[in-house]
């Protein structure tokens, strides 16, 4: 199994370390030629969604990656990655891949002073650590998307088929369960 990690900007190394600790091979996607190889899953990391979104287009990665996701390539987006996958952003006119049936809110908890840590149940993973950094949350899911976790009544993780998205950063803690959850999606594809 090989996982491509979008490495345009943000916390991509942290995801690679998580996968390594699970014995899963990964590689960085920085430009078009990086995705000419075979791979089984895609991770879109945290960072600034405006930067990642812009570079996706400029480096001509946007269309091929969207095609892969639409064809069922398992994808895991954290924070900015969740924003990339959302069909609608309530406080921003941009739409990126837009492949998940959900509306999200950017910087929903305010500035850095609003960043926080908590622990909460996530689907079959049990109670997992959740680090929110200038994070978004999911205002609503519809269609095929289903909510996986909530914090204070707000949805913070969702799944739609092979797509998994979290508003928090599982790559920042040592707990590998959310990554294992994704690896299982990739395995069972």
């Amino acid at each position: 199994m090989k996982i491509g990690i979008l490495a345009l900007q943000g916390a991509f190394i942290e995801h690679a370390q998580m996968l390594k600790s699970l014995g899963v091979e990964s590689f960085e996607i920085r430009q078009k030629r990086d995705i000419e190889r075979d791979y089984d899953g895609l991770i879109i990391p945290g960072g600034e969604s405006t930067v990642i979104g812009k570079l996706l287009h400029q480096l001509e990665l946007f269309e091929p990656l969207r095609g892969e996701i639409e064809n069922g390539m398992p994808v895991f987006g954290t924070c900015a990655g969740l924003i990339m996958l959302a069909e609608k952003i309530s406080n921003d006119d941009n739409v990126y891949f837009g492949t998940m049936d959900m509306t999200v809110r950017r910087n929903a908890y305010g500035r850095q002073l609003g960043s926080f840590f908590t622990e909460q149940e996530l689907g079959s993973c049990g109670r997992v650590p959740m680090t929110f950094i200038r994070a978004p949350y999911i205002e609503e899911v519809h269609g095929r998307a289903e909510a996986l976790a909530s914090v204070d009544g707000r949805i913070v993780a969702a799944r739609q088929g092979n797509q998994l998205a979290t508003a928090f950063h599982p790559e920042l803690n040592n707990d590998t369960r959310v990554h294992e959850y994704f690896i299982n999606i990739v395995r069972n594809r």
Partner: protein
Amino acid sequence: MNNSRSELNRNLAQMLKGGVIMDVTTPEQAKIAEEAGACAVMALERIPADIRAAGGVSRMSDPKMIKGIQQAVSIPVMAKCRIGHFAEARILQAIEIDYIDESEVLSPADDKYHIDKTKFDVPFVCGAKDLGEALRRINEGASMIRTKGEPGTGDVVQAVRHMRMMQAEIRRLVSMSEDELFDAAKQLQVPYELVMYVHENGKLPVVNFAAGGVATPADAALMMHLGAEGVFVGSGIFKSGNPAKRAAAIVKAVTNYEDDKMLAELSEDLGEAMVGINEDEIELLMAERGK
């Protein structure tokens, strides 16, 4: 400040990695920077080149001006306070700044003590010329480090010197035996635990950016090759002929710093770079402020 706050503040710096943080003086410039792909902006009244040219005492920017920039963009907004000026820092915290740069570019307010950054909820980035400075700032609570470079000159030589120095000292610590680390801690004037961290991990415990004199995509790529995790660009963008194009080129250069062909394309037709001053032509070395 509890541990989780300092952890969250280090985490924000992790999200900035692989990105470019740009100096801006107006909401319009901030929008250009965001549009060009900046991962954060530094709001200040005058960019370092103009601070250098104007001379005199340079202070924290007008909070109203910073708020204008906060309203203009959705990316993190940073602002500078003077070294040791914790009252300026508290004002910046009160307007919910995302990151405070305790910066040698402004006139130092305290020639002995830096701010006790552990007392704050907002994160701080501090400049460092070498490993000792970096670890002292981290010990005081900095959640992110940058080289000091020589702001406002458009001359990358000092940023290179600081980054090389830091990396060399890190490699030296890594190669030491554990009993030698006690003396290293003494020499660096930092706690043993921080020295031990560097010894075991081969890196600083916080994110480390390059700053000072970056003016071209090639400058940015050079700093990334030398071990920077991202780049601050100050005067280099808005002192150049075509800020939007140059800013976008530097952003792409940081992401693909190992692709020489792409760097060649990015370096084409950027218009006039900032003129710059050589380090031996300047009288005031800002990097010597606050050690």
